[in-house]
């Protein structure tokens, strides 16, 4: 049973022949994501994996044997291994160290994405805090003036890419929000910005049910939709093959944290050209989000040695 029918959930359901539980629209963020990474568009992959084995509802409690699902038909307990495909959550203002008032016009990324796709304008001077595929994709849809403030760098995109598309880029940290009824200004480490809409797009994996198995952005923030699918395949193989588990420890984001020895591969969230040491052996990432072969053992360490580019 997979909780969430976004791209990662759809892919995991296909590879595992599982059932999906989704409260909203099937397809998630990538359904309307036409902004490519490495030539791959999320919406194409969603179409490829789209299927109808979906239970409408919201999972509110899960345990080792299954999960409780609430829907218009009532609540029921569904048995099975529960896999979380809840996607990302936006880091909160407190986590980001942003203070001040809380006027209207401050949107978490996903809500801004939904509103824009439904035909609403979220503001006339929009600032997006967070530089990643998802914020670039939103920016590509906005007619309004957009300024990126880079809270953290994108793995899969370069700053020049945003500039080429006409988005202003500002490297710095957002510090404070000002405004009474509606957002008026933003104080940043690099100066003040006039703005009537702020989109919070610094992301974290989201696993609200505290599940052992998670996939996609619920496991690791991944910007490349093809890697989201690859991650789902990896998890499915690891679950289906059984075998001894290898614990993977890394100072870089990685997925899965525990992998079947028979599968023996993990995805690491580093840029192309990053020098890594995997179980004592040095290597260079040939692409962003590389798929790394890991040696046999109970516990394998992946160290980031630096960047060659």
């Amino acid at each position: 049973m997979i909780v969430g029918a976004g791209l990662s959930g759809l892919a995991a359901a296909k590879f595992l022949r599982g059932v999906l539980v989704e409260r909203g629209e099937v397809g998630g963020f990538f359904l309307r994501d036409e902004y490519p990474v490495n030539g791959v568009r999320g919406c194409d992959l969603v179409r490829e994996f789209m299927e109808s084995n979906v239970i409408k509802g919201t999972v509110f409690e899960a345990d080792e044997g299954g999960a409780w699902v609430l829907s218009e038909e009532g609540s029921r307990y569904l048995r099975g291994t529960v896999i979380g495909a809840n996607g990302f959550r936006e880091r909160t203002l407190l986590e980001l160290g942003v203070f001040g008032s809380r006027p209207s016009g401050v949107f978490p990324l996903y809500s801004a994405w939904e509103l824009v796709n439904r035909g609403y304008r979220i503001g006339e001077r929009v600032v997006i805090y967070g530089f990643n595929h998802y914020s670039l994709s939103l920016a590509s849809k906005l007619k309004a003036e957009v300024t990126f403030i880079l809270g953290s760098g994108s793995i899969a995109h370069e700053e020049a890419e945003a500039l080429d598309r006409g988005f202003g880029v500002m490297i710095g940290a957002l510090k404070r929000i000002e405004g009474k009824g509606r957002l008026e200004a933003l104080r940043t480490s690099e100066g003040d910005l006039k703005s009537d809409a702020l989109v919070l797009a610094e992301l974290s994996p989201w696993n609200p049910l505290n599940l052992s198995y998670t996939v996609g952005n619920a496991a690791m923030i991944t910007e490349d939709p093809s890697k989201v699918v690859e991650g789902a395949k990896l998890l499915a193989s690891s679950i289906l093959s059984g075998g001894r588990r290898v614990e993977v420890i890394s100072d870089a984001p990685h997925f899965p944290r525990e992998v079947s020895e028979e599968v023996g591969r993990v995805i690491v969230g580093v840029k192309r050209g990053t020098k890594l040491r995997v179980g004592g052996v040095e290597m260079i990432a040939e692409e962003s989000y590389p798929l790394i072969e890991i040696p046999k053992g109970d516990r394998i360490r992946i160290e980031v040695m630096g960047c060659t580019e």
Partner: protein
Amino acid sequence: MMRDSYDVIVVGTGIIGLMITYKLSHYDLRVLAIDRNPEPGWGVSRAHAAVVHVVQLPFRSLKSKLARSGNPELLRICDELGVRYRRTSTLILATEPHHLLVLPLIYLYLRLNLRGFSVRLRGRGPLLREEPALSNRVLGGIEVGGYAVVDNFDLLYALYEFSKSNGVEFSLGEEVRGVEQLDGSVRVITDRGAYEASYLVNAAGLWADEVLKLTGGNIKFELGKGVLLVFDRAISSRLLAPLYLKPDPKTKGGAIMFTHDNRGLWGPNLRFTERKDDTSADEQDLRTLTEKFSRLIKTDAGIPIKAYAGIRPIPPGDDFIIERRGRVIHVLGTESPGFTASPSLAELVLRMLGDSGLRLNEKPVSRREPFRRARDDPKRARGHVICACNLVTEEEIREAVRRGAKTLKGIFYRTGACMGTCQGSRCLADVLEVAADEMGVDARHLQLGGDGSWVVS
């Protein structure tokens, strides 16, 4: 233009004003409540911790006495109105060896002054077993019973709904600009016109000084800002407060608390501000609260969801002031523990109105239908969930509108939508459209919390 006349006009629909209208609605009276905010309870009352208190120093103060008498009455009213709350206790925790020397003395002092409430000395071992989140630095403590955490917004709206359905008229978004004492009545002039009443009650909270000024009086509040941090989960089943050897009379010092919905709540701190609308939180607030409380626990506090601030009107003498000037009763300085004391305060105001000549003839009242939510009993619920963090259904959004929500914040406060860990990430667009549909307006016309707070265009 004179608009209408009433037996009583209440200015302010915070917890005190609403508790007064709730009590007045049991009598055969014509009552009007006026508030400058678009919805009730949006002043001081929307930004406190909703804790039903017991310990309030000094014990001889009026606010301490009213809190102790108001404590059981507030929970009785919650029961009557179907308002959610959780009973709990407070642990006053000793973390230094010299604290242990004074612990028995503080225990005796509390026992002598808190008749009717349980007070127990607690050893380190049992405390650490019962509250696994507690730091190993905790050496012992005193447990005081009788506390509770209330669904604050549910209580505010319950009082509003009960008062309204039992005859109280409300005029929201209207500001009082003048008060004239006439022979046998009082005239209230607002930005929309004027009313006449036999009596006026000033329960304007943070703005009560300004209403007092309109009647010729004068008082200067200190504006005490308190910031609270909200986490995605609670880490204890009791409220955890550090022991102080020199308590600050202006604050109980805050605690690690939780909400009725089991979210973590840390604070408040206390610092002074010059502006009544200064409800911003700063990095310094976060640092102060984190440093103060993190030493009491050894577990991860969870995901910090947000910080919010409330401002207390601290009066001279640090005690509530309730005074009558002609036909006007002023309730001044209703800072903490005004929430706990509110039923007793309202009763006091009613007595003063009665003593002044207001006829209090009881009438039959209709009950308030509790606001039922999926998350109260999800395994028996049904519905299309819109907010997954707080399990808010589409029907709950519609019901909030039917019960009087006019803004998105009004819906958030009534239902909990957009107030969970994702802060509206997954539900804001749906809430906006369902609310607009129920109100029969375009979503572009909805405001977050009042004029100028447009959401989308």
